[in-house]
């Protein structure tokens, strides 16, 4: 009995890879397994190789694995591109139709199943994904009735006849492969899971859910990969709460519309990826200058320009921090797990209103789109803090304006909303005085700049870093952000096996950089290795700038569009440690 395994399905885009993955993982979720998914897809709708990988475990997991146990292949290309991942003794389930072959020098078991033929016999080749998934499910020796329930849910709306046919397809696939293999494969038998069904979602769902919980009632956004699911989720949910989503003409409209409705008192968000973020910069500056709250999600993908729109990268760090002209206060929060995507979205809205600044919530493609098990989300942790919103403004004489930008101790001024009595004030992106009126006075300018930028001096953010630090003086401190955390932890296990002690920091508050929190860990580590998905070591640059100790900071970088695998991080960390030993 094993405690985890990895399953992958590959084929042409539009061939049913997505739906097969959905049914397979839904069934596993029902059994209580922890799941972590990865989608490899191209920027096109039909055609082109695509594959989905699911890691299945009886324990919580937060990353994909290096190797693969079962590959379901709809075409030879899927075998050619993915067979190298299979562990010795791994299995390929493939369609007899294309006379599949596996590399000769590998220890791979091939089960050739007449997938298309069985599907066609049952009426349509469309059902071949059901035949294939039934076959691979059966090899694992998992209960078929649970799988059939997932099939029922997927096809239920198409009527009982369709459900029945698909269930039959699953059975035929299962029967065929079991006869071929002589029963379920012993070395693929998963230990039973705890049977407790987990939440199972992508990061973008968790962000959308967090937004609804945070009281976000409007979203203005422009479609873009890999952010669109946030918009799609809110299109579904916001009408139930009286709100709506506006699909704008571009990202400039998206961010400025969000600023307008935040100004008028509604928690409003927008979400995009690098190209959209670039377009939003002037708007973000307006929010900073007018002290208008707004939440912007940046789901990072491969840049620059259109770059690799469907691939993993973490290269917007500098753009987010420095992209706006002039100097404004802003907060950048980087969740690193599905649960944090939810809680951090709520916190983003609270911080945005509390400090009256734009907040960027940053993810990366793998965190936004990788479907994974999520621990129960705690209703009691949903807190809405709208900051210093004035309920009733005192009466004013002679049309005196409300001092919306009053100088206060912490720089945050009481806020009134349009429509309120006695609250009239001006708002402008031009430098202004306490009532919002334009002012070019040098004295006022300096005071206002200090007021706005000083708001973050009193910034309190829960857990600006997440530390896994068992060791007082570790050999290696690995620092990362976003989706890489789980993979880093797996690499650490390998390093620890080699006798290296490791600590791990995840930067959750990317800006303002939590230098004071990070510094002690850096000082006490022998090596500091920053792991990030970009070419210019942007996170390491922040660390060097704010914490120093450049002499012991190294980088492990990956910018080929694919997420890190544990082995890559392990090998490079090992290499860095050995190299420095030689130098000593």
């Amino acid at each position: 009995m094993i405690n985890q395994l990895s399953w992958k399905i590959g084929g042409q885009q539009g061939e049913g890879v997505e739906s097969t993955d959905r049914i397979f993982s839904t069934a596993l979720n029902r059994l209580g397994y922890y799941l972590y998914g990865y989608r490899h897809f191209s920027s096109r709708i039909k055609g082109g190789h695509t594959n989905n990988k699911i890691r299945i475990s009886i324990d919580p997991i937060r990353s994909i694995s290096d190797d693969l146990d079962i590959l379901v292949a709809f075409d030879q290309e899927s075998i050619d591109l993915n067979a190298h991942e299979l562990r010795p003794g791994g299995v390929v389930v493939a369609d007899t139709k294309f006379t599949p072959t596996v590399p000769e020098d590998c220890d791979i078991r091939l089960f050739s199943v007449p997938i298309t033929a069985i599907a066609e016999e049952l009426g349509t080749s469309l059902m071949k994904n059901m035949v294939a998934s039934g076959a691979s499910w059966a090899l694992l020796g998992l209960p078929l009735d649970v799988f059939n329930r997932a099939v029922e849910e997927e096809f239920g709306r198409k009527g009982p006849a369709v459900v029945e046919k698909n269930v039959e397809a699953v059975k035929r696939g299962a029967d065929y492969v079991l006869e071929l293999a002589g029963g379920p494969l012993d070395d693929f038998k998963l230990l039973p899971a705890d049977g407790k069904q987990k939440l199972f979602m992508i990061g973008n769902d968790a962000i959308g859910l967090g937004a609804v919980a945070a009281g976000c009632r409007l979203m203005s956004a422009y479609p873009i990969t890999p952010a669109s699911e946030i918009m799609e989720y809110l299109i579904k949910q916001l009408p139930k709460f009286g709100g709506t989503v506006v699909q704008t003409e571009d990202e400039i409209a998206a961010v400025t519309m969000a600023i307008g409705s935040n100004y008028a008192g509604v928690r409003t968000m927008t979400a995009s990826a690098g190209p959209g973020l670039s377009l939003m910069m002037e708007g973000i500056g307006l929010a900073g200058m007018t002290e208008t709250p707004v939440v912007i999600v940046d789901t990072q993908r491969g840049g620059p320009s259109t770059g690799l729109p469907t691939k993993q990268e973490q290269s917007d760090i500098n753009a987010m921090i420095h992209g706006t002209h002039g100097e404004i206060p802003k907060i950048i929060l980087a969740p690193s797990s599905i649960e944090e995507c939810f809680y951090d979205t709520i916190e983003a809205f609270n911080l945005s209103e509390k400090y009256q600044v734009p907040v960027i919530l940053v993810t990366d493609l793998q965190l936004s789109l990788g479907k994974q098990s999520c621990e129960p989300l705690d209703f009691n942790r949903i807190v809405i803090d709208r900051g210093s919103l004035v309920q009733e403004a005192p009466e004013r004489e002679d049309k005196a304006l409300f001092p919306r930008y009053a100088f206060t101790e912490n720089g945050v001024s009481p806020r009134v909303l349009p429509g309120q009595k006695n609250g009239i004030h001006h708002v402008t992106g031009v430098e202004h005085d306490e009532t919002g009126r334009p002012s070019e006075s040098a004295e006022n300018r300096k005071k206002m700049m200090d007021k706005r930028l000083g708001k973050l001096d009193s910034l309190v953010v829960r857990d600006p870093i997440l530390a896994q630090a068992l060791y007082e003086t570790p050999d290696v401190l690995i620092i990362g952000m976003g989706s890489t955390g789980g993979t880093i932890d797996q690499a650490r296990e390998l390093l620890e096996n080699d006798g290296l002690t490791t600590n791990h920091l995840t930067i959750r508050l990317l800006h303002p950089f939590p230098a004071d929190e990070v510094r002690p860990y850096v000082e006490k580590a022998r090596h500091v290795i920053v792991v990030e998905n970009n070419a210019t070591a942007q996170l390491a640059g922040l660390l060097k700038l704010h914490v120093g100790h450049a002499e012991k900071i190294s980088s492990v970088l990956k910018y080929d569009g694919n997420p890190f695998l544990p082995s890559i991080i392990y090998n490079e960390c090992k290499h860095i440690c050995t190299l420095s030993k030689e130098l000593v």
Partner: protein
Amino acid sequence: MATFKDFRNNVKPNWCPGCGDFSIQAAIQRAAANCGLTPEELAVISGIGCSGRISGYIHAYGLHGIHGRALPIAQGVKLANRDLTVIASGGDGDGFAIGMGHTIHAIRRNINMTYVVMDNQIYGLTKGQTSPRSAEGFVTKSTPKGSIESTLSPLELALSAGATFVAQSFSSDIKQLTALIEEGIKHEGFSIINVFSPCVTFNKVNTYEWFKENIVNLDTFPEYDPSNRIHAMTKLMETGGLLTGLIYQDKNRRSYENQISGFRETPLAEQDLALSEEQFDQLLAEFK
């Protein structure tokens, strides 16, 4: 009841003496009072340029945003608080050059608000460059040999984009202008009112006298039917766009807010944000 004086503040506009924008400001103030609004119920959202300063010259809620983006900001304000009367305003550069994309889509979206364009056919605040509204051959600092681009016809564009309220006026005709802004405010949906507002400093061609000589005023054609889109388009083309009055109105199309499913009558800004535990559990159900 509030009068137009209640919408005045003590800020002295930094417009040049004789600028058409003064009258437009006065017309907005009068129209707001005539509609029975109080200053708190009005939000004026403006862009950048000479005219963009208008939101600071009216005693009401006001936001002076960034160049070309008055409309998306204003639409956000209206969606957040549908009880507010929202007027967006800016120049021809703001709305028809840098912000043209937003103008077309705001028209298509048809959110209930009014857009007053202060059209002087030139860039004033940057000291005299060509605008999309400049005539061909128009000599400016940026077109020393005369503009070689065709002149934009914003209201023809508005009609083709599905506008439900299209009007044009002249800053000297404050009576007509006030009435049109009032009508625009009362109109359910997006109203665009383009106003010829002569720039006395940089535009020596499209002067007050020039407009007086060339404008065709629909108020002198009592038989004109503003519900006919084809006639509206024809009339605009016949007059080279120099047509004032209510050019087109579609009273049947409902505003964006009134077509959003589930969008409540109470302003969103006033709604309770907290979810009940039951509602939260319902949201979680789809992920199991």
